[in-house]
């Protein structure tokens, strides 16, 4: 099993969620993060004058899926989180050694 961690733009969550849903990847965990990368921040303003913020709001989506599902999940995310501008985000794939469903105590494949 793998954990897919995708950092995306906040406004893309709905599209990504729907795309995953259609491929019946329903389970996911989302959290608010701030990030920086190629995108060099945004300019905001004080009462007078401006300033730059380099850590921008992003969302992190975490999905734990079977190894064979990783490509499909990646496709769904990339296709729907893209705008083509810097700041679109990154996806990281991490190994997961086991999974437990709290409700039942089921393990691994049965628990996803």
């Amino acid at each position, binding site marked *: 099993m793998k954990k897919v961690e995708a950092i995306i733009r*906040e*406004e893309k969550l*709905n599209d990504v969620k729907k795309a995953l849903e259609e491929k019946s990847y329903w389970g996911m965990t989302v959290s*608010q*993060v*701030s990030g920086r990368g190629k995108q060099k921040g*945004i*300019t*905001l*303003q004080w009462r007078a004058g*401006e300033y730059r913020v380099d*850590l921008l*709001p992003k969302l992190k989506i975490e999905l734990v899926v079977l190894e064979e599902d990783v490509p499909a999940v990646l496709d769904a995310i990339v296709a729907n989180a893209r*705008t083509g501008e810097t700041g679109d985000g990154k996806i990281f794939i991490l190994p997961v050694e086991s999974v437990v469903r709290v409700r039942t105590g089921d393990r691994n494949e049965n628990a996803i």
Partner: protein
Amino acid sequence: MPISAGDTAWILVSSALVLLMTPGLALFYGGMARRKNLLSTIMMSFAIMGLVGVIWALWGYTLSFGADKGSFIGGLNFFGLMNVGTEGSDTYASTIPHLAFMAFQGMFAVITVALITGAVVERIKFSSLMIFSTLWVTLVYAPVCHWVWGGGWLGGYGALDFAGGTVVHINAGVSALALVLLLGKRRGFRSEVMEPNNIPMVALGAGLLWFGWFGFNAGSSLMANGLAANAFVATNLAAAAAGLTWMIISWIHHRPSLLGTVTGAVAGLVAITPAAGFVAPIAAIPIGFGVSVICYYTIILIKEKLHFDDSLDVFAVHGMGGIWGALATGIFASSSVGGVSGLVEGNWSQPGTQIVGILAVAAFAFAVTWILGKILSVTIGLRVGSTEEMVGLDLSQHGERAYGGLLR
């Protein structure tokens, strides 16, 4: 007539109370928007406090209350506050300084324009809103205000509007509807969940509105007298009854909702506005009950059946609430309160007169707003771009975000 210190104190306080309603509205609306549009929503009200505040002193007051021109509009005799002094006016509220009357009326103009914004939040271009507001207060608010209160035809005709059911609420609500039709829906309307970002903020806003509305309604008696007390009690009772009613409706459908309760209270305040100085206070109970039923189902109709994106329900609450209030004034008016009888006292013609007022104002407001909106739409555009809308208006229109610091 000499200036009365008691009346002056009351109207100055009332003016301050009505002024506070606009920041209250900013929070009431702001809390219902999504977080990415929170500042933008609040900003609309504050920008209008500045813009309309200045316009009112320059030409708004004179167009509304200047010497009557053909029953339609005021003349320019009060342009730039000329001839508006510390003595009482001959025409209006002679026991208070003319400036106090002007100030009180100005607060109404500000909040009326601000009310409209609830319908167009989360997608209107800020520059267009500023131009629209300038034109609207000049070409819609001032004439309608003149018709009803400034010596124009509608007041003369006998349509009753104690504190602005027609001038403020129907006017704003119907204009909001026209803009909604022009602007179209927000991206994701009815496909994405659009949760209010901060319901405690909505409740705070509602609390300030309720508080300020005493100035709005009871201040409209323009004296600190029995009529003011009558309006005061009717106002409170309508808010209470309507809040309670909406709570019960939401309970029947699901659970007793705070958002519903405060919406109901505001709807009750809308409905009692035209009636407060014409009906016996106890009539506020049926008026408040009626308005919550009407507005609740209007929201369902507009949003779920017609799929109009009247985002914060301005037409449903202010338009329909104002219409019900105007009608209810014709029904419940009591000659012992405001000198005019309504239907329940056997005056069958008053509801008809009220309907003429409703239709005239609604038609005028809708038509002129539509034309103004259309012109803006085909010239500089009414709506922000799609990316700007997705990112949110706080960043895209104002270069700010509501909550700073590292993270949200």
